[in-house]
């Protein structure tokens, strides 16, 4: 089926009816393999497609979507979209972006995906599991290991003249193993992803990343409630980044639902805090030539040595803020209207090694696992469950579990007093190991 022609033809129907519209069409093939204890557990393969349509009629908007591309289904989608748009409320911020020139087209499609045999992928998952299980004698059982990949195509086009498309691939490996000591069972988990098969983290490192966490944390008990330093490792620091990225949502800022509202140009973090959002990083996991509305993506420094430089906007958010889209329209599949989100989003690494951060910590918690949502982008409140190890005078003295770490996001950003050099961009939001001078630790 010629999807480009379908999109063009459908947009023309809306125009004829006096409406504007945007189509986001997605097709893809995906594969998921999971193994457990050396045996294949699940093998899931599929191809799917779908399109989501935003319809604008006199500043009123509707959204319709379907997986059925037959003529009858598309005609009824057009009709339904128009009738629903007429029912919605008038909103001056209901706008579509105008076309802009796309200057960067990052490499995000690996043609090798078609040539890698299934058996090789199953073996990869089995080998990661085998190595993680043999990492340490305390590791007694698997939690499962999975390999998945997908390749797909996106077309995004609107009646104002945007017409973009791109192909992308993604490879992902996830592993969990359990360490046991007495009555205590502790999982250690790691996941890693890449746009190119050859960029996947090597098998041994994936295995060690999971095994090391399980062994370090097993047998953890709560410490006394107190204030102390908290070191976040590469994985758990993502929690803070996630809170920051949600607070950067320009529309939420305008609605006064962000702790970062009104803080442009203000120093909100320590000098060590520089945070970048990069949509054009070559081979980046979250790189794309255009965002979910067809606006070119870009590389932006969002927080520079502690100073907040800007927010994330899609077309609607930009209209509300009387600004310009920053290419930050996010799509969560074809079945959802665009929202606002980050691309490759990271805390710029510092110069210390993670070991140097630990040896330089007098007393505190080194966090390997956080549990819970606990991050409120509206108020900036931060409170999550944590497990890890306790540090006294620069040395790890034992495992800790079932404590809560709490603070305010602004205090945390200002309290960052050490940043390590161990950033790995194997996910869309990533950070190196870093330390926060002081947080409230809730224990016994």
């Amino acid at each position: 089926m010629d999807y480009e022609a379908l999109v063009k033809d459908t947009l023309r129907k809306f125009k004829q009816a006096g409406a504007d519209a945007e189509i986001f069409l997605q097709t893809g093939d995906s594969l998921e393999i999971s193994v457990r204890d050396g045996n294949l557990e699940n093998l899931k393969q599929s191809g799917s497609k779908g399109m989501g349509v935003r319809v604008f009629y006199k500043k009123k908007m509707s959204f319709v979507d379907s997986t059925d591309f037959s003529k009858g289904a598309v005609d009824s989608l057009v009709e339904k979209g128009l009738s629903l748009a007429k029912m919605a409320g008038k909103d001056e911020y209901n706008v579509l972006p105008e076309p802009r020139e796309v200057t960067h087209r990052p490499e995000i499609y690996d043609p090798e995906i078609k040539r890698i045999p299934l058996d090789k992928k199953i073996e990869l998952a089995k080998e990661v599991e085998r190595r993680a299980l043999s990492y340490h004698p305390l590791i007694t059982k698997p939690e499962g290991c999975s390999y998945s990949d997908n390749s797909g195509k996106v077309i995004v086009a609107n009646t104002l003249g945007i017409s973009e498309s791109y192909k992308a691939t993604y490879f992902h490996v996830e592993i969990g193993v359990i360490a046991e000591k007495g009555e205590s069972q502790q999982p250690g988990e790691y996941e890693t992803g890449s746009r190119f098969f050859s960029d996947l983290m090597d098998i041994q490192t994936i295995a060690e990343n999971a095994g090391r966490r399980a062994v370090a944390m097993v047998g953890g008990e709560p410490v006394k409630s107190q204030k102390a330093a908290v070191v976040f490792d590469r994985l758990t620091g993502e929690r803070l980044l996630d809170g920051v990225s949600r607070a950067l949502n320009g529309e939420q800022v305008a609605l006064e639902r962000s702790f970062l509202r009104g803080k442009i140009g203000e120093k909100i973090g320590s000098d060590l805090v520089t945070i970048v959002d990069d949509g054009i990083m070559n081979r980046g996991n979250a790189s794309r030539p255009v965002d979910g509305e067809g606006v070119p993506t870009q590389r932006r420094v969002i927080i520079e040595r502690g100073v907040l430089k800007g927010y994330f906007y899609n077309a609607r958010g930009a209209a509300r803020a009387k600004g310009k889209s920053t290419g930050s329209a996010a799509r969560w599949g074809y079945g959802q209207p665009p929202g606002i989100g980050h691309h490759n989003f990271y805390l710029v690494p510092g110069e210390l090694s993670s070991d140097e951060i630990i040896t330089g910590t007098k007393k505190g918690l080194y966090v390997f696992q956080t549990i819970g949502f606990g991050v409120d982008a509206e108020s900036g409140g931060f409170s999550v469950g944590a497990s890890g190890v306790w540090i006294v005078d620069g040395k790890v003295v034992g495992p800790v579990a079932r404590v809560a770490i709490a603070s305010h996001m602004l205090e945390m950003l200002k309290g960052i007093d050490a940043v390590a050099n161990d950033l790995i961009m194997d996910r869309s939001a990533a950070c190196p190991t870093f330390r926060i001078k002081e947080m409230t630790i809730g224990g016994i």
Partner: protein
Amino acid sequence: MFSFDFLKDIVTRREFIRRGASGGVTLVVAPPILKAILAASQGAKEEIPGWLSKKEMEKLLKVALSRGGDFADVFLERKLRRDINMDEGRINTVRFGIDQGVGIRVIKKDTTGYAFSDDLSMKKLKETARVASEVAHSAARSASISRSKPPHHVFARIPLESVAESEKLDLLKRADAAARGYDSRIRNASVDYHDETRRIVIANSKGVWIEDERPIIYFTVWAQASQNGKRHRGRSRRSGTKGIEFFEGHPPEEPALTAAKEAIVMLDAEEAPSGEMPVVVEAGWGGVLFHEAVGHGLEGDLVQAKTSFYYGKLGEQVASEHINLVDEGSIPGLRGSANIDDEGTATQQNILIEKGVLKGYMHSLLTARQFGAKPTGNGRRESYKHFPLVRMTNTYIMEGKTDPQDMFRATKKGLYAKAFWGGVVDTASGNFTFSVREAYLIEDGKVTRPVRGATLVGSGPEALRSIDMLGNNLGFGPGTCGKGQWVPVTSGQPTLRLSKITVGGTKSD
């Protein structure tokens, strides 16, 4: 790790069900689809228009079993979804979507092969069945199916498709007006309306051929209060597996007022305390604590993998003798209910813990076979794009005898957790966290000041053992549970007290 997303004056039926005749826009969908969706309410027909025939399904099962395999099933789904959002006093987005497709599964020993297609041509479906069959390597088999009728406790009296969208808009406008009218400090309200009708057909190699229809409504109201630079957003949700008659028992004003009250009260909230203390958890959605802390550990697949804390503990005392934990997918109208699960097994009441003793696990067809147990109606899936996992439905702790007021009176210093975001559990270690949205201090036997930002942290088995007072007021709350796939559930419990649990607030003294 599993998690919850975080994301009621009686009205007569006539008041809000004015069909298309009222000048509102009626549903516009492709007529065959509408016919297919509405067919269910008109009684069982031999074959539904646009769906697969008996012969076609048998053919697909035959292809699925062409390389052997112990079991195969075909799952057809067609879902109509509608979403309406109101924010800042106006209808923001009106959405409509159709999902349809077929998922085909083949099981060989403990290995599952799965493939799905949104293209319903037999050519594409046979290819899908062939891909699913790739996990098996033995002699071909075939299957014949015969049709059976599901139970009928979940149904729409007034089908969601038969109500004009303009009538649904009125429900949002009423909620918006009620929230804003509650107090001048309520600066904004937003309302999310979601409804869907999901029709499924299941056929399997054991001869099962069964269909079901599931209506569901999810209604969420947010109320934002602000005063002197302080702000809070309150939230309240209602959900049920019913047609539009749902709102007869749950008028939209009700969640609006609950959300508005929370927003106003919490304006004056202080920082939550930190450390170990007794916590009184409000009836209803508070049951999410036990959904997370205990329920997931009783799902047969996690027990089979030996990663659950509750592996090998059947017959053991795992809670005080007052505790009875139940999962029951057959309660009419609740969000987690259905007539059959997504493998065709009738839903039922499953007593998981009786008088503190672990009685049983929840099972899908696969885990039931692995355990030599009976399926319990817990094989659920998010959509045709997913193979079934063992999932909870409506999970609750049965009520006790204590007046909740006595729990406060018995508590010198503690926390009263009234409304929650949700929780997360690590089923292997049993560690969980639970985020509280609305909470109060209990001081000298009285509920006193509101506090914000509390997180409860603990171990599931310990939390279950630490329940020392059980209220006489069972309630339920709706949510959506994530385990790689999202499914609608409810959690329930009476008001109860945990004698001791870690509270992680930002205040330390």
